């Protein structure tokens, strides 16, 4: 607040009415866009809810902002030679928010609940390899898997697999209890969720904050105004077109980090014209992905071949995604029996502005390559019923998953759980590479397979993987000790407000 402005406006009035810059208490206030629905972490399905999952609960393992996986409620882990028998010794003396100690039976009960089809847990299919989970003693959990799975410790860091007290499952939807750094206090849909510091948190001296408030503010411009007014400390997930303009504000800090979330032009590989690989390839070589990133994401992203982002060590650096080749594309189209080019509708999701922009970008950039794309806008809420897995060509995208296996297998393996809802893609080389990678616990061997998989996808694309998109947040300058996490959640245990 500068003094001259006050003087101009009349000192007496302003002094009487000016609010304190922020409340005295040490509470971090984060602006979200939509109201969380389910408070049972097992049932959460969107990014706003995942923030809460990671503040109130712990999993057996935890994924840090550098994407390394470290022990969380587990002290460590070990696995058998064949990758089917996994043992997790637990930390001793971890207390739930109600004061009871967390023991192995709670972990066992959670995974039994997750895998029980009656509970229709959204992410249960990611854990289908678990055959049995047992507790030989109160501080040890043992998993036996039906097939070897090298990334098992990694997927236990995911958002929905959080340990809750086995005797209080019934109250999770109203009064959730976990072991996390912050305890649930109250939730008013449409307004805010209030969390308070967990005094018994197992990491000594943490968290440093007294509490967290997740404030639900639907309008982005209002969130930014609230941040500038000092009513918020963090705005989560700012639109990528705002990264540069907001970066210029003196009292804000904007961070934009690469993620493994991707958008794509999804093609139906079973029906004409995209059942012909030459048409799919023409679509891919007809456009320069760097132009797509610039026009769709305002530069806040990177071109990619598959769901594996270029920031990942498994990315196939020997493949060059080059400049647009419209002549080559037209030639491929002619070979495929379309000498005059192709006219086809492209469906874009209303309510997902970035993906909508991607559709329009492709419409413009692919004209010289012989594609006449007719943009059709369909509400995103109607996608599942009308578009997914059905339309010949549409824009959609998926958030990052914790492992390369869960990022690729469901989408690109012919038996993958998402494949039939997207492109009906089937390539024997890609299948073979994905299967082999899954059966190996050795990152070096996995890397060889995943690079082979990317070559398969590059030669025989299921659609057009447009880019790996950045994730950006805006912070008040007072916020310290928070890293912008590529998985789009927050670890606030070390956060402070200066």
């Amino acid at each position, binding site marked *: 607040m500068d003094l001259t402005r006050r003087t101009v406006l009349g000192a007496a009035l302003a002094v009487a009415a000016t609010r304190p*810059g922020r409340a005295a208490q040490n509470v971090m206030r984060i602006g979200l866009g939509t109201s969380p629905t389910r408070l049972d972490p097992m049932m959460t399905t969107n990014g706003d809810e995942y923030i809460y999952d990671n503040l109130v609960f712990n999993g057996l393992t935890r994924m840090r902002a550098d994407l390394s996986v470290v022990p969380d409620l587990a002290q460590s882990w070990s696995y058998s030679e064949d990758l089917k028998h996994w043992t997790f010794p637990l930390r001793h003396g971890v207390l739930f928010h109600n004061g009871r100690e967390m023991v192995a039976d709670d972990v066992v009960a959670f995974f039994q609940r997750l895998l029980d089809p009656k509970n229709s847990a959204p992410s249960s299919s990611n854990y289908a390899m678990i055959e049995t989970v047992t507790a030989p003693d109160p501080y040890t959990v043992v998993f036996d898997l039906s097939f070897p799975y090298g990334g098992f410790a990694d997927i236990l860091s995911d958002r929905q697999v959080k340990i809750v007290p086995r005797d209080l499952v019934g109250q999770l939807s109203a009064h959730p209890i976990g072991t996390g750094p912050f305890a649930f206090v109250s939730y008013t849909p449409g307004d805010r969720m209030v969390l308070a510091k967990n005094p018994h948190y197992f990491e000594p001296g943490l968290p440093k904050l007294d509490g967290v408030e997740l404030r639900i503010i639907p309008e982005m411009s*209002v969130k930014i105004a609230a941040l500038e007014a000092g009513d918020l400390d963090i705005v989560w997930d700012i639109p990528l077109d705002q990264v540069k303009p907001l970066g210029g504000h003196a009292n804000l800090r904007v961070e934009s980090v690469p993620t493994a979330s991707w958008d794509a032009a999804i093609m139906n590989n079973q029906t004409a014209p995209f059942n012909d690989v030459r048409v799919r390839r023409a679509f891919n070589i007809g456009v320069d992905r760097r132009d797509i990133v610039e026009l769709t994401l305002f530069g806040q992203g990177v071109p990619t071949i598959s769901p594996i982002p270029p920031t990942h060590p498994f990315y196939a650096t020997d493949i060059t995604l080059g400049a647009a080749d419209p002549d080559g594309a037209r030639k491929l189209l002619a070979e495929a029996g379309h000498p005059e080019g192709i006219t086809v509708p492209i469906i874009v999701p209303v309510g997902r502005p970035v993906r909508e922009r991607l559709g329009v970008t492709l419409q413009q950039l692919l004209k010289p390559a012989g594609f006449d794309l007719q943009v059709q806008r369909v509400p995103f809420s109607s996608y*599942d019923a009308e578009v997914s897995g059905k339309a010949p060509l549409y824009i959609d995208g998926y958030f990052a998953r914790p492992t390369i296996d869960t990022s690729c297998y469901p989408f690109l393996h012919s038996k993958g759980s998402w494949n039939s*809802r997207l492109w009906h893609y089937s390539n024997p080389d890609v299948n073979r590479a994905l299967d082999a990678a899954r059966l190996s616990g050795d990152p070096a061997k996995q890397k060889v397979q995943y690079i082979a998989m990317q070559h398969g996808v590059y030669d025989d694309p299921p659609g057009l993987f447009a880019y790996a998109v950045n994730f950006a947040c805006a912070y008040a300058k007072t916020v310290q000790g928070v890293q912008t996490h590529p998985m789009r959640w927050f670890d606030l245990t070390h956060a402070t407000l200066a």
Partner: protein
Amino acid sequence: MLLFVARRLLAAVGVVWAMSVLIFAIVHILPGNVAYAILGEYATPTAVAALEDKLGLNAPLWLQYWHWLSGVLHGDFGLSLSMDRPAGPVIMDALGRSAILAGIAFVLVAALGIGLGVYAATHKGQASDRALAFAQFLFIAVPDFFTGLLAILLFAAWLHWLPATGYVPIAEAGLREWLAHLVLPVAVLTLGLTAHVSRLTRSSMLEVLESRYILAARAKGLPERLVLRRHALPNALPPTITILAIDAGILIGGIVVVETVFAYPGLGRLLVFAIEHRDLPMLQAGILIVTAIYAVANLVADIAYALLNPRIRYATGVA
């Protein structure tokens, strides 16, 4: 008079019931359902089928409707499907907060609207009337979301006088903070609606002021204040009351834009949330309440007519 009220109440119940059937039908016609909404990006066909089964969405429509209706008749609004908790308390909380916003705004709109309307009518053609007309047309024309954003930028982001958004309970934060959070949304709502009401009051007042009985009242030497209060205003008010009755309903459930801009957790936004998530029990409960409020407000308006105008009173009395 009692018979009149009873008949109107019965009609209101009929309207509420018809709305419940309509909403039920519309939600089932919309593409996608609550299972898709709950599962989000995990909505694989098998997961959707399992969840539909669990939520009872596979039962015949009439049976689903009957379950809901019999619940409501027992005072049970059912479980919010998307939130997995009772819909009744969630709705009632939101209704309470909407009622605060609506109550304050309504009183201000009624007082300012009628007051300014009468003032403008009695100062017709003068500079103050023209200035008022300019302001009124401005606030009728400029949409609420624009005034709202402007107000936030000015009073919260720039001047730091008021909080940008939200609502705080009076018990938690005290009277001062509670009021501070209400000032901007109430002001934006009041500006827009007052403009409508005062324009309407002005024109009906002008019409009445030119009638013969006003001429007669003035001719018999009544002071102008009495002419206005006893003869002109009661005859000019009925259209204003109709508008105010509609505004009462709008303020409770229809101010989605203002609630969204100010992130105010009211009933309007909750209804939008329920529609987005195809959350039928929550939507039904909310619509039921909004419809009932409209019906009651219209009933009150009709009674007010009757009190203001003996001709209506006697006509309905014998009917």
